[in-house]
């Protein structure tokens, strides 16, 4: 069934928000110069992708545990990536690098 726009579908709306976040964060990732801000842009881009994944999967047939489990794995992997990047960043700054 194709969705007519009168029925405002909140899942699809959040998928669109996720897409907007992905694009905005992608722009910021390339443009921002300090490495920490690039990392924040990466995190927000990841959240955008997660919103898209859950939103697109659920806007037609309601809450679906599989994408939610994938996104849970994604959040934990994103935290591991952020922690790793921060370890490298701190070591780089401590040994005299410019963040």
């Amino acid at each position: 069934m194709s969705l007519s726009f009168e029925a405002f579908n909140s899942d699809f709306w959040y998928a669109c928000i996720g897409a907007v976040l992905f694009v905005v964060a992608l722009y910021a990732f390339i443009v921002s110069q300090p490495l920490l801000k690039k990392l924040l842009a990466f995190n927000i881009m990841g959240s955008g992708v997660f919103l898209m994944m859950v939103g697109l999967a659920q806007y037609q047939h309601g809450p679906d545990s599989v994408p939610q489990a994938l996104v849970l794995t994604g959040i934990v992997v994103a935290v591991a990536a952020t922690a790793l990047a921060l370890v490298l960043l701190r070591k780089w700054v401590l040994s005299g690098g410019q963040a």
Partner: protein
Amino acid sequence: MIPLLLIIPLVFALFSVLLPRAPIKLIALPGLVLQLIASLALSVQIYRHGASDYQLGGWETPLGITLHANGFTVTLLTLTAFIAIVCAVYALVYLQRYRHEQRYFWPLFWFLLASLNGIWLSGDLFNLYVGLELLTFSAVGMVALTGSKPSLRAAIRYLYAALLGSLGFLAGVGLLYGQYGTLAIQDIAEISNAAAPTQVAIALMTIGLLLKTAIFPLHFWLPPAHGGALAPVSALLSALVVKASFYILALLWLDLAPEAVAPAAAQLLGALGAGAIVWGSWCAFRQSDLKMLVAYSTVAQLGYLMFLFPLSIGTSAVAAELAWQGTVLHLLAHAFAKAAMFLSVGTLVLALGHQSIKDLAGVSHRVPLALFAFGLSAVSLMGLPPSGGFNAKWLLLQSALLSGQWWWFVIILIGGLMTAAYVFRVFRVSFVEEARHQFAPTHWLLDVCALTLAAAAILLGFVSQWPLQLMQLVPGGSG
């Protein structure tokens, strides 16, 4: 049999984290021998009974994850196991003077192998994403192992580029799940069409994977990372890690949604590959540092792999099969040759104490075996007969002629010449007799490892029928 290849590296990785320094080195080699035997046994099984699937946890798709093992997968598994053993022997000797790095090299080494085997075998999109992340983290960890400023900077750039690539890939996975409702590659392949979400998903995933395979112009992170790392690490990275994301790219374009990709897009990928060859070789020619030269050579050689797409999409079945065989052989030959080159360069740098090409004088006299291994691997990279590299380029040339795309024919030849150019630069200097500085003695085992891999690259030329038969290549598909 199939899950054994996933279990062995994970178990040894855990023991490498738990055990103190001495026993880690003891368990490394037996584990790798075990893994090589397992992959050879799987190859025999696949050769006899054809491709086979394995449902993890007993759940069939679309709910569970299935592992898919065919000829191509098994060839890659055996390649990984073989190169891992030689690099491990090299690392055992090479890392003796790096006590701190030794403690943390081996857990990362085993996790790298676990993720590589996971990627070769996986048949599930999100599983490939998590495998790619584990691969990236272990590779970044190995690059940053020495903790020196340049290696830290290279590791940060590598991590940021790889994370951006992974997110592109994940966005594609999200779109595909939104459209098809499943994540299993086999299921999507059956019902895939050329609708917008599939095409945009493939485009996003392609950009992400190109970034992770360091294809021109997204190659900026590779030279400092591979050039700055320890010798066994750069060998593993250049030979195997960059190939994993290429393997997924080939899986997507040729298996997942063949009709969603237009021949024009394939020509674009071919153009990027050509750009990689020319730009990579040109930069390699201008490098003053030996390891950076070899790193840029990786960027150049990866360009050849990109010719698989223009030569097999929208062309005759025979041309497609030749292209596929040429790409597989090039992948194998480049893995052996590049690993051998990095290992031999590692020995040279140990002996000389510095990495600059200008004063390599007297190397041919003092460290002959290492230079000989460098030479052998250069022969394969240049594509001179009888090496494996030659057969690969020969098949690619035939495929280009058959499909009437003469421009790839020209690029492949130019690539071979440019490779010769930057390799002879090294030889011209190293055969000068009088050496101005003394040479540190190096362990004989280091040369043996480099020579085995170089010999494998050359031998591949003679036995290139084996891997091709093993794959029983169905035209255009991965069997």
